């Protein structure tokens, strides 16, 4: 895990990040790790020790599903988001937006005047 963000901060949002990437296209573990790294501007490096348990948990919750492909000569497990996963993504995105807005409101008095919050 990259130290750019504290692990506590990332813990609650990893599901959202992974589901978000899988909503675009199906992929496999290593590729997902690299895509997350690129999408986050090299700020979030999900180590395999975190990534695979997370993927297996999401699969257990039927938010993603997997299939095996060995057309490349090596057995590879591909993941794709399910309808339930897309639904969860919508709910969590909404929740996340409200959370961010809430935090920004709370932190607003601490910001220097004239600072622009995104």
């Amino acid at each position, binding site marked *: 895990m990259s130290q750019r963000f504290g692990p506590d901060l990332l813990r609650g949002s990893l599901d959202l990040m992974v589901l978000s990437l899988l909503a675009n296209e199906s992929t*496999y*573990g*290593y*590729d997902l790790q*690299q895509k997350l790294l690129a999408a986050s501007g090299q700020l979030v490096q999900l*180590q*395999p*020790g*975190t990534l*695979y*348990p997370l993927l*297996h*948990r999401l*699969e*257990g919750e*039927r938010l993603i599903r997997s299939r*095996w492909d060995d057309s490349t000569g*090596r*057995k*590879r*497990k591909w993941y794709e988001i*399910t*309808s*339930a996963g*897309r*639904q*969860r993504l*919508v*709910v969590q995105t*909404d929740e996340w937006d409200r959370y961010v807005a809430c935090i920004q409101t709370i932190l607003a008095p601490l910001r220097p005047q004239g600072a622009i919050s995104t």
Partner: protein
Amino acid sequence: MSEPEFEAFLERVCRRLRLSRVQRGAIADELRDHLEERLATLATRGVPPEKAKQLALAEFGDESLFALHITAPHAQQQRRRLMRYSFGSTLAIVTTFVMASFYWPAHRQDDAHTVQAQAGIGLAPAVESKPEAIDEELVSREELTAKLKRRTVPLAFDAMPLSDVVDFLTEAHDVPILIDRQALADMGIETDTPITLKVAEGVVSLKTALQLVLRLAGGGNEFAPTIRDGLIMLTTVSDSYEVQVYNCRDLLKGVQISAPSRGGGQNPMGGSGGGMFQIAPVVGQEGEGAVGPAVGGEELTFGLFSGYGATTNAGYALIHVIQEGTAPGPWVNTDGDGGTITEFNGLITVRHSQQMHEKISDLLKKLRKATE
């Protein structure tokens, strides 16, 4: 064959996984693919092979911890399966026990009292104490009713299978919802029927959301969420029929039976006004099967209508009000199919769906409030 270091690592990890051989093999294949990919990437960056292998393995962290973390979701899945199985078995046992109790001769004499107790009818002191099980069911029913009335979380189903939709709503609302698969199958509806529905947060209640989902699945108005055995069961309306007895003696007590004003229309609630029910006097003789209200006639004519299940004019009028006020039925006496409604000694006995019983309860409350 991958690198010996990788194979040794995978063997050590798999040895720590408390999973089936097939599951361990699948996890090893997946991790092997990751390690090979990582090795190839590091090689393209010019990292020496031995160093690259060490880096790739180090990224997995502590082997024991990793094994523990990757086992957890699978173990949880097994627990869920076990719980589902246990829940299904318990439900089957409880249902069998309830059915056996219901048909057990010694208990049959209590049936009427049970129905009355559920309907909240004042009972004679000798039968007023209700069985504890009934109290528990009532509490459970109230809780489930309250949950059905709560506003939903945002819904955005995009061709989601019906069973997944139900699973989602079960989880989001923390309420047990069970699909009557046989009833669905009888109507040619599969549990993987894709549902597409978008509803913003709080716009509809859980009950309405379930009704919308069932309609989208092709169930029309034939299916409804029904509370049964501590569950919300998605079943056909006719399967959800149950008997309730409504004590309406207070409503019928002050009813004025009077002749309607001439040309006062066909509505038994119309007429000369003033009373709750302004009903024409009995013209037909008992047992003659006279029907009412007489459509198009100058007078409304009522009698003892076995077909309408009322023993008094006022009783019949109340049945008419209930049927009109909760339309559309269906009712056997007006539609040829559906529920039944009868009156005896001020008690209205209705066999219909829970949705209809809710409508009737609401209507009776309004009638009582209007007469306060």
